[in-house]
C-alpha cells in the first residue's frame, strides 16, 4: 500500500509537483500519465527518495518515509525501475543479482513476516520469471540489449522484495514484443500483491494495465479514471490529455487534428506520441526555413 498526501517537490529552479495526493492499494496498478515536463519522473524520484520532498508524506503500509535517504526508502519496501534503466555498466548480470538481493531480516514475534518470507524474491525466483537474464549471467550491464537492461533493472528492484514498485517509462524505446512482455510482467507482479506505480507519457500502456489512471498536468492532478471503464472506452482519458495544456505553449498543436489521429488504445505504445508529433508539425511549418 502506497499513499502520497500533499506531496510537493521541485528543484532549485522552482516547484514541480504541487500537493499531490495519490494512493495505490496492494495488488493494484496505478498509472500516472502526462506530457513531458508534467512532473512524472520528479514524482517517481521523490517517492524513491532520490529527491527530497518539500512537503507532504510518502507512506508505505502506513509508515512515513518521506524525506528519508534513498537507501532507507528502499529498505522500507519501495523498489525503483528508473527511467533509462541505469544498470551498472561494469557489473555482470550475476553481480547485479548478488548485489541487489536483500533477504528480509528475521523479525521477532511478527506473524506476517513468516508468510512474507515465503514470498521473498530470491535470485532463483527472479530468474524463473526472467529466464533471459540467466542466459546472460556473465555479461556486463553495458553489453545487454535495451530489453535485457530493462529486465535487469526490474530484477534489481524485485530482489529487495518490494511492497511498492515504481516503474518510470518501462516500455520506453523497446520493441513492441518486449513491451508486451513488460506489460504481462506488470500484471503478474500486481497479482503477487505488489503496489505498482507506473508513469508513462503513453496513455496506451496505462489503459492496458492500470486499475487507476491519474492525469498529471504541470505537477497537478487534473483527472482520474477507473481502469475498467477506460479499457472499453479510452476516449475519456485521451480527451483529458488533449485538454491539458503543454508546459510550454510553443509546442501546442490544434486539438482537432490530434483527435483525428487518435487510434490509440488498440495500437502499440508510442503511437499516441507519434500522433501528437505529427499534429504539431504543420504548425511549426511556416516558421521553419
Amino acid at each position, binding site marked *: 500500500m502506497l499513499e502520497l498526501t500533499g506531496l510537493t517537490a521541485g528543484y532549485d529552479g522552482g516547484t514541480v509537483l504541487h500537493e499531490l495526493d495519490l494512493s495505490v492499494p496492494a495488488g493494484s496498478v496505478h498509472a500516472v500519465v502526462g506530457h513531458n515536463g508534467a512532473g512524472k519522473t520528479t514524482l517517481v524520484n521523490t517517492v524513491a527518495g532520490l529527491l527530497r520532498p518539500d512537503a507532504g508524506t510518502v507512506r508505505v503500509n502506513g509508515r512515513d518515509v518521506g524525506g528519508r535517504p534513498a537507501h532507507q526508502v528502499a529498505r522500507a519496501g519501495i523498489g525503483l525501475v528508473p*527511467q*533509462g534503466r541505469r*544498470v*551498472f555498466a561494469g557489473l555482470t548480470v550475476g553481480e547485479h543479482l*548478488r548485489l541487489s538481493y*536483500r533477504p528480509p531480516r528475521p523479525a521477532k514475534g511478527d506473524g506476517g513476516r513468516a508468510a512474507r518470507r515465503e514470498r521473498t524474491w530470491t535470485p532463483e525466483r527472479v530468474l524463473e520469471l526472467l529466464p533471459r537474464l540467466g542466459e546472460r549471467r556473465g555479461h556486463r550491464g553495458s553489453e545487454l540489449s535495451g530489453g535485457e537492461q530493462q529486465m535487469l533493472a526490474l530484477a534489481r528492484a524485485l530482489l529487495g522484495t518490494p511492497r511498492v514498485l515504481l516503474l518510470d517509462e518501462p516500455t520506453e524505446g523497446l520493441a513492441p514484443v518486449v513491451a508486451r512482455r513488460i506489460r504481462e510482467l506488470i500484471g503478474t507482479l500486481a497479482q503477487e500483491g505488489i503496489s505498482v506505480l507506473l508513469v508513462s507519457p503513453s496513455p496506451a500502456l496505462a489503459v492496458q494495465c492500470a486499475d487507476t489512471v491519474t492525469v498529471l498536468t504541470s505537477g497537478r492532478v487534473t483527472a482520474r479514471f477507473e481502469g475498467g471503464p477506460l479499457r472499453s472506452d479510452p476516449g475519456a482519458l485521451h480527451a483529458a490529455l488533449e485538454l491539458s495544456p503543454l508546459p510550454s505553449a510553443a509546442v501546442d498543436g490544434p486539438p482537432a487534428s490530434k483527435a483525428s489521429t487518435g487510434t490509440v488504445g488498440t495500437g502499440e505504445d508510442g503511437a499516441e506520441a507519434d500522433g501528437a508529433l505529427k499534429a504539431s508539425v504543420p504548425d511549426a511549418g511556416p516558421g521553419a526555413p
Partner: protein
Amino acid sequence: MDVLDAQLVPAVDGVAYGLLLFVVAAGLSLAFGTAGVLNLCHGALYAVGAYTGAELSDGTWEGMLLGLAAGTALAGAAGVLLAACTAPLVRRGHLAQALLTFGLALIGGDLLVEYFGSDAIPVRIPGALDQSVDLLGHRYPAYRLGFIAMALLLAGSGTWVLTRTRAGAAVRAAAADSQMLATTGRSPRAVHTGVLAAAGALAGAAGVLGAPIIGPGPDTGDTVLMLSLVVVVLGGLRSLWAILFASVAVGEVQTLGVSLAADWAPYLLFAAMALVLSVRAHRGAVPEPAGEDGGGAPAAAPVSRLLRALARARRPRPGSARRTGIAGEPGNPEVRRGGTGGGTGPSRTASAAVAAGRLLPGPVRRAGPALALLAALVPLPVLLSPYALSLVGYALALGLLAVSVTVLTGYAGLPTLGQAAPFAVGAYTTALLAGAGWTVGPVQVLASAAFAALFALVTSPAVVRARGTTVLMITLAIGELTVVAAGELKSVTGGTEGLIDFPPTQALWGGEPLVDESPAYNYSLAVAACAIALTLYFLRSPAGKLLIGTREAEDRMRASGHPVTRYLLLAYVGAGALAGVGGSLLTTVQAYVSPADVGFEIAAFALLAAVIGGTRSVLGAMFGAGLIVFIRDWLSASWPGHGPLLLGVLFVLTVYLLPHGLAGLRTARPPIPDRRTPAPEGTP
C-alpha cells in the same frame, strides 16, 4: 650478461619500489574512482603510517606488528575523517575537494613535522630481516624481499575483494551510479566512507612497511603523492593491472634508470609520462568530430574562426563612435591607459581613468572595475614603503598566474594545478635573456610569453583531451616534473640555487635599469595592465563565449561543428603565454629566480587565488593573489615557521566559507547553479 647481472639489484629494488607505489596509488585511484575524491592528502596518510611505524618499531617483531596495526588504523581513521570532511562537498565538484584535501595535506604535513621534527627518522627493523640474503650471486637486503612478498599479498587481496566479493561489487556499483546503489538499499555514503577508510588504511600500511624504503621525512608526503599521481596518470583509473604495470615502470625508472643513466634520471619519468600520454592522446580518448579528421580541415580554421569572432567584437558600436577619437583604440582603452600609466606619473592617469569611467559609455563602463583597480594601484609608489611595494609587484606577477588559471579553470573548464610550469618557463627565460645581455623589458616579456606558449603547446596533447580531475592530475604532474627539471638542469637554471646576478630589466629601449622598487613596480603594473586588458578583451569577445560554450555543453558545441579540442588548445596556449608574462614579471621584480619560486605551492596558490576570486572573475583572481601574498607575508612575520599550517587552514576555510569565491558574496545566488544530484527528467 654482465650488464644484466650488474643491474639485477637495482632492478629488484625497482620492483619493491614499484609495488610500494602500487599499494599507495591503488588507494588513490580507488578513492577517486569510487568515492570521487581526488585525495591530495593521500601522501600525508602515507607519512602518518611511516612516522607511526618508525616510532613504534624497536627492532623486534612485536614492535613492527604493533607499528603496522597502529599505522594502518591511524591512517584508516584519517580516511574516515576525510570522508566526513568531503561529504558536504559532494555536489560541489572535484575542484573543491582537491583544494580541501590539499589544505588538509598542508596542515597534516606541518603537524607531522612539528611533532616528529624536520629530520628524517631512522627505522629499525627486526633483526631477522635486517640482513642480506643471497640473490643469484648478489647480496640483497632480506627486508626488501619480504616487502615485495607483503606488497604482493596486499595487492592480491585488495584486488580479490574488489572483483570477487559483494562488497567489491557495491564499491564498483557506487562508482558507476551511486543513486542506483541506494535503490538497492545500500547507503552510498557508507560505501564512500568505507572506500576512503580502506584507501587510507592501505596508504598507512604502505607507509609502515615502506618506511625503510621511502621516508619518513618532511618531504615524504609530497614525494609519495607526486609519484602515485604519476602512476595514476600513466595507468589510468580503469584497471588495477594498468596501475600495477605503471607502478613497477615508475619504480624501475626511479632505481634502474638512476643506475643506468644517472644524468638523465630526473627526466626519464617526464619522458615516459609524455610518451604514454601522447600515445594515449593519439588514440583519441575523446573522439573528434568526424568531418575533421577525415576531411583534413586546415588547422588554421579554428584560429580564423576565433579571429573572426574577435573582429565582431571590434566592430564600432553607436555609443563608442565618439570615443574612438579620444581613446584611439576602441574596445581596449585599458591597454593604452595601462601602458602609459607607468610612465607619465600616477595622479594624472588615475584621474583620467576615473573621468573616462564616468564620461564614456559602453565597453569602457564595463571596464570600470578594472580601471578602478588600476587607479588604486597606480599611486602606490608614493604611499607604500619599498618593501611593501615589492610585495605588491610580486602579487601582480602571481596575479597574472592566477588569471591564467582562471582562464583555464573558469572559462575553458580545465582545472589546472600546473600553471606554475609555463610561469617557470617565463621566469627562467627572462633571467637567461638578461644574463645574455637582452635587458629590454618588452623583448623579455614577449620572449617569455612566446617560450611559455611553446611549452604549453608541447604539453598540450596531454591536457586538452582530458577533462575534469584528470586535468588536475596531469597538470600537477607536468608542474612537478618541470620544477624537478629546473632543479636538476644546473648548467642552465643554476639548480636549486637558482639564477641571480643578472642585469636588471630596462623598461624600454635605452631606458634606465629598473634597480629601485618604484620604477620596477611601475613597469610591472604597466605590463600586467596590458596583459589583463588583452585577457579581458578576449574573454568578453564572442571568442570567450565559444570557450564558455565548450565548458558548459561540449557535445553540443561539437555537434554544431565547433572544433572544441582546438579551442581548448588555443586557450591552453594563451593561458601559458599569460603565465609566462607573469613569470617574466616575477624575475624582474625579485631579480632572482629559483625552483622554489615556481613550485607546486605556487601553483596551488594560483588555484586558490582563482577560487577566492570566484574562478570566473579575472579581477577577482588578481584580488585573490593579492590577498594570499598579503596573508602569507603577514603570517610569516607574526607566526614564523607555521606558514604551511595556516595556509592549509586558509584553503579549508575558503572551500567551506566561500563556495563561490568573493564574487559569490556579491551576488546572493551563484550565477550558474550547481547541478543537483538527482537530475531533473531523464538522466540516462
